[in-house]
C-alpha cells in the first residue's frame, strides 16, 4: 500500500519543492489520497499506534526527513510540503516528535515518517489540496491544530495547508470536500497561515522559525526586565515615602507639643511694661 502510494506520489507534480523535496512532496500527495480513503474508516488511533507505524515505515522513507519542522507551533511558514507529508504519516507520532524535536531543534525531526498512516484525526495538519493559488505557508503542525485529518493532497496541490484553522477554513472547505474525507471537517482543517505566503525552501522556513523564536524570547526578556525595573522603582519609592512620612509625623508631633507648651503660658495674664507716663 505504501509502495503504491509512493509511486503515485512520485508522479504527482508538486511545483514547490522544499528542500526535502520532491520526494517528500510526492509522498505527501499519496498519503493524502490514501488518507482520504482511510479516514472515514479509521477511528482515532492512539499515539502509540501511530508511532509504531511510523517507526515501521521509517526504514522505507528516509528521504522524508526534515519535514518535521512544521511541528513547531511558533513557526508557520512554509513548511507545507514537508509537513504535510509528515502529517499524513503519523499524526500522533508527530506530536510526540514534535515535542521532542521542538525542543531539540528544527532539524532533528525523525525522518522517516513516511507512510501515511491511517490518519487518525490526530494532530492537525491536514493539508488539503487547494487550488494552486492557495499556498500554505504554515510550517508546522501545531498541536493546537490537532485534529484533523490530513487531507489528501493528491495531485495538484502545491498548496499545503497547515496551521490554523482560521480564515482559510472556509476557503478550504470547498476544495477539501473532494479531497478530504473522513474526519476532517472544515472546522477541523487547518487553514493557511493567514498572512504569510512566502514560497521558500523548507530550510529557510526552519531558519525563520528559529529567528522568530529568538526574537520572541528577546521580547519576553525585555518585558521581564521592564517589569522588574518598574517593581524595583516602585518599592524604592514606597520605602522613601514611608521614611519621609515617619519623619514628618515626628516633626509634627514635636511641633505640636512645643506649641501646647507655649499656649499654656499664654493663658495667664502677663505683666508687661507699659508706657511711662
Amino acid at each position, binding site marked *: 500500500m505504501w509502495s503504491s502510494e509512493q509511486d503515485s506520489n512520485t508522479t504527482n507534480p508538486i511545483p514547490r519543492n522544499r528542500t526535502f523535496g520532491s520526494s517528500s512532496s510526492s509522498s505527501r500527495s499519496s498519503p493524502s489520497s490514501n488518507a482520504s480513503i482511510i479516514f472515514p474508516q479509521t477511528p482515532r488511533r492512539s499515539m502509540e499506534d501511530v508511532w509504531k507505524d511510523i517507526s515501521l515505515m521509517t526504514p522505507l522513507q528516509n528521504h522524508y526527513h526534515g519535514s518535521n519542522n512544521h511541528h513547531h507551533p511558533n513557526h508557520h511558514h512554509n513548511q507545507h510540503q514537508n509537513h504535510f507529508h509528515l502529517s499524513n504519516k503519523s499524526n500522533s507520532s508527530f506530536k510526540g516528535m514534535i515535542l521532542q524535536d521542538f525542543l531539540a531543534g528544527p532539524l532533528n525531526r525523525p525522518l522517516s515518517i513516511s507512510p501515511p498512516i491511517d490518519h487518525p484525526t490526530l494532530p492537525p495538519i491536514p493539508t488539503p489540496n487547494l487550488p494552486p493559488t492557495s499556498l500554505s505557508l504554515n510550517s508546522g503542525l501545531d498541536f493546537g491544530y490537532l485534529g484533523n485529518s490530513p487531507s489528501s493532497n493528491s495531485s495538484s496541490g502545491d498548496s499545503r495547508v497547515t496551521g490554523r484553522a482560521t480564515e482559510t477554513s472556509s476557503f478550504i472547505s470547498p476544495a477539501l470536500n473532494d479531497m478530504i474525507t473522513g474526519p476532517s471537517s472544515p472546522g477541523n482543517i487547518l487553514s493557511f497561515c493567514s498572512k504569510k505566503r512566502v514560497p521558500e525552501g523548507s530550510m529557510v522556513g526552519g531558519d525563520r522559525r528559529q529567528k522568530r523564536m529568538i526574537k520572541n524570547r528577546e521580547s519576553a526578556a525585555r518585558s521581564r*526586565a521592564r517589569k522588574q*525595573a*518598574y517593581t524595583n522603582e516602585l518599592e*524604592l519609592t514606597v520605602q522613601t515615602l514611608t521614611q519621609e512620612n515617619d519623619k514628618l509625623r515626628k516633626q509634627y508631633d514635636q511641633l505640636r507639643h512645643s506649641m501646647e507648651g507655649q499656649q499654656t503660658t499664654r493663658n495667664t495674664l502677663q505683666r508687661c511694661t507699659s508706657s511711662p507716663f
Partner: protein
Amino acid sequence: MSRDSLILGQIIGDVLDPFDPSVSLRIVYNNQQMFTGTDLKPSAVVNKPRVEIGGSDLRVFYTLIMVDPDAPNPSNPTLKEYLHWLVTDIPATTDASFGREIVCYESPQPHSGIHRMVFALFKQIGRQTVRTAPAVRSKFNTMDFAMEHNLGAPFAAAFFNCQREGGTGGRRWR
C-alpha cells in the same frame, strides 16, 4: 537603589556606563512626577517636562540629554540612539528651563514596540562647554558625546517606557 532600576531596565549597558547617582533628578510631566520605569503614552509626553536638578551650588552647570535607544524598534534598533532633547548650562538647584536648549524637545512617537526614553544628566566642567548640536538626531551615542565634551560619567538618569498611542500595553503581567 534607583540605580538598580536602571540596571534592570538595561539602561546601564545599552545607553550609559555604570555610575553612581549623585544628584537628584526630578522629571515632571503634566504636573505628575515621572518615576523611572513607568509607562507613558505619547499623548502624555507631547510637551517637554519640567526637569528639576538637585545639587547646591548655582555655579555648577549640568547638561541634560534625552534619547531613545530603541528606535525604530526595540528588536531592531538600527537608529540607536535617537536624540530627543539636549539642554546645557543648567545651573544646579534649578530646572531645565534655565538652560540652553541646543536640540529642541521632540515628542516621542514610537511606531512599533515599547521604547525606553532615557534622561541622562551630566556635569559640565565649565560653562558653554557644549555648543555644537549633532547634525542628525539618529545614531546618537550618549557616552561618546559625553566623552567628546568632557562631561564624564553621568550624575543622574531616569527612563520611562513609551509605546504608540493605540498600543496594547505589552505582555500581560500587570
